[in-house]
């Protein structure tokens, strides 16, 4: 099969790779760009483990072909924060025990960030509804809900600090 060049800006870095036109974005991220924090949990776009940000929107990366995102800006879990400087969502998941095996977690955090983009102060119920696109088999979701709520508070705080400081 003839290969096609795909260039993206991923986590702030410009990266290119030659891929088969049929390659899924999720495999492009994991196998071509070696960013393995994004996971694959199903073949039918139900589980959301592969969720990433493409041009500011949360998408399941198994629903797009790599060639469709040529020129796009992508953020994966690796682009959120580092161990030394965790993103508020990561920090909240840590503090509230929002993960167990950690396999679905990168996708769930992405979905949650997408949720908070639209609703800064979601209720428990809105969080549960908002996580419709992800499946976690370990946590029973309760501490994920706590984590998202906590993250919303942390993010609100951070914005305030940024606002006053600058």
């Amino acid at each position, binding site marked *: 099969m003839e290969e096609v060049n795909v260039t993206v800006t991923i986590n702030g870095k410009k990266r290119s790779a030659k891929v*088969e036109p*049929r*390659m899924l974005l999720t*495999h492009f991220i*994991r*196998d071509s760009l*070696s*960013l*393995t*924090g*994004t*996971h*694959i*949990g*199903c*073949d*039918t776009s*139900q*589980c959301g*483990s592969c969720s990433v940000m493409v041009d500011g929107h949360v998408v399941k990366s198994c629903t797009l072909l790599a060639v469709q995102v040529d020129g796009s800006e992508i953020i*994966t*879990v*690796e682009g*959120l924060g*580092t*161990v030394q400087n*965790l993103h508020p969502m*990561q920090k909240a*998941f*840590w*503090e509230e*025990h929002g*993960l*167990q*095996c*950690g*396999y*679905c*977690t*990168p996708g769930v*955090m992405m979905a949650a960030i997408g949720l908070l983009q639209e609703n800064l102060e979601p209720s*428990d*119920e809105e*969080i*549960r*509804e908002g*996580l*419709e696109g*992800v*499946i*976690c*088999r*370990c*946590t*029973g*979701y*309760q*501490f*994920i*809900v706590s984590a998202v709520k906590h993250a919303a508070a942390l993010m609100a705080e951070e914005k305030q600090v940024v606002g006053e400081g600058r």
Partner: protein
Amino acid sequence: MAGKVGARIKRKEDPRLLTGNGYFSDDIQLPGMLHAAILRSPHAHALIKSINIEKALEAPGVVAIYTGKDLEGKIGRIPSSWLIPGSNLKEAPQYPLAIDRVRYVGDGVVLVIAEDRYGVRDVLDLIEVDYEFLPVSVRQKEAMQENAPLVHDDIENNIAFHWKAGEVPDEEIEEAEVVVRESFNVQRVAPSPIETRAAIGQYNPGNGELTLWCTSQNPHIHRMVLSEVLDISEAKLRVIAPDIGGGFGGKIGVYPDEALIGYAARDLKQPVKWIEERNEHFSAANHGRDEIIDVELAGTRDGKLTAIRVKNTANMGAYLSTFGPGVPTIDFGLMITGAYDIPKAACETFGVYTNTTSTDAYRGAGKPESTYQIERMIDLFAREIGMDPVELRRKNFAKKEDFPFTNAQGLVYDSGDYEKPLNKALEILDYKKLREEQEALRNEGKLVGIGFSTYVELCGFGPSAVAGAIGFQGGVWENATIRVHPSGKVTVFSGTSPHGQGHNTTFSQVVSDKLGIPLEDIEFVFSDTKAVSMGWGTYGSRSVAVGGGAISIAADRIIEKAKKIAAHELETSVEDIEFEDGVFKISGVPGMERKFVDIAKSANYAWNLPEGVEPALEAQAFFDPENFVYPFGTHIVVAEVDKDTGQIELKRYIAVDDVGRVINPLTSEGQVHGGIAQGVGQAMWEGIVYSDQGQLLSGSFMDYTMPKARFFPTIETAFTETLSPVNQLGAKGIGETGTTASIAAVMNAVVDALQPYGVTDVEMPLTPEKIWNIIQTGGENDDTI
């Protein structure tokens, strides 16, 4: 440093997982790595007439193609590791690929190795297999009938084993004042961790060492079994479980696929990677449950239970998997009396071969089924004699003063106080008030129900001598090594194998308290057979009780040796040395002390050691507990049924668990939530469905209702602490309590809600359609699928 045990501490493993730095099987990339895919049978039962691989061999990037015939005599059969004695168990041989006959949808037929991940899947489409269909046996009770199609020609009536424990003579039932009878179908479900199975093999022709990374909950069992299957010395086979994305029992099994990948890597002398697809996982990875349970419970009109007789007809699938036979027998049948002092009990279990995927342990393994039947029966009995279900429970509980309590099947419950969590849960619920409200709501036409599950569970596997007596092909002790480095930092090697539970944190808390060193100074090695000498893995809620027990003993040995060195340096006798919070001191003599780090250094430098004391500071302990542990508790569900739609809403879920010592409340609550979600999932939504032709109809997350966040209410949790005498920590298992308790609690609540219709039982899962039909027919449709 003291006081870590019992503290709510966030997990050490998380920063890595949260930043995308986990290392799961599919993240492994090796130079020259090839990709594997397995062509699986689309038929439940058929003869393989021919396999045409001509076109496939010409496909670009193909490296090798193996059929079952190609591998005959080259890979051994995949054995079951739980051969129940006295059950006339007939183990049908399972080969890594079907040779001339497929026996379930998903049975492996051809293994393809190719250069790339997408290409290898293309090749599968080019293989032509000609099948001749055979008649199928799918449901266990039908499969046992005379003239039912045989899954294995030489196994009569498809009966894999027939096991009995205990005896209840007919007159105990027939002459009892009250007898209630019910039949329950605990439907087949899929453990379905979000990470599917995977295996990566790498062979070094130079030294003949084969390394196999695989999604295993018990890498040492994988090594033990696969070394035989692949005919390779255990010393040359290294099994590593990297980060594992959940297991729930589904990754206990030693599967044909793992043997195939090990074989191919060795045969081709190139690394081979196999990553299972989700629909493949639904058809080829072990399922759980699928037991039809017939129960008779006898007692007196004033509520004293006298005898229970249970028959379990279990669907084992096409082959007996690794732990499969133990689930409906030992795990189920010895616990049928639950938390109650019922003097007589008997269980009879049939394990039946069918043309379906094998069943094995799924979270709780036998105990959720056992709890489900007894807790449902208690409610039925209470209703029959007009007694409050809580009162009937109290009346028959094993009494606090009777512990250690021997149940009717001969198991000795280590410790218990069943009233304690029940009282606490009732207090949280405000039971009296709620019953009044329920009455009022019923009068308004609203269907609200309250369901209880006052469970007890057998876990913490366990004493090895018992394992031997019940046919488990291995031991169930645990192994821990603590290595103290010259800096005073330590590495702990444990034979348990975590896959989400948070062992690193929990065990660090134990070691930190023992040695008086900070959590950050403690690192762990798990799940690598080359690094950890031996161990039996993580299942049956055994890690803290048994693995933690071994770690505690190893820590004691470190302290014992360090005390000798400290005494020598402080020029006193060992008896005078006290060790507290990381400091060795002479009682009553201020200033005379050595810190743990000082001793770490002097032990490793060995400049000045007491006579007879070896250099270094390292200790290993093998812990074989004298008994299992028996966590217990009370779960209460308040459910409301929508009359018009049949939809069920869980209004409240209260879980009060007693798991002995709670080492970390945060992770413990997490375990409880996760366990409950899986039990509630079974009660309400989940289910593997086969057509009468043995076709799998629930092969994806589109068709198998995997619970989502909005399905659940906020779970209210609490703990009581009744310590276990079995291990130093006083800890019991917590991983499976939620699943064990929750199924019955939900079902009891829904049946209670439907009481105005005279409903006494509903079959799982509680689909709105089923409930709606029951309401429409005024309860007549009760107990139909």
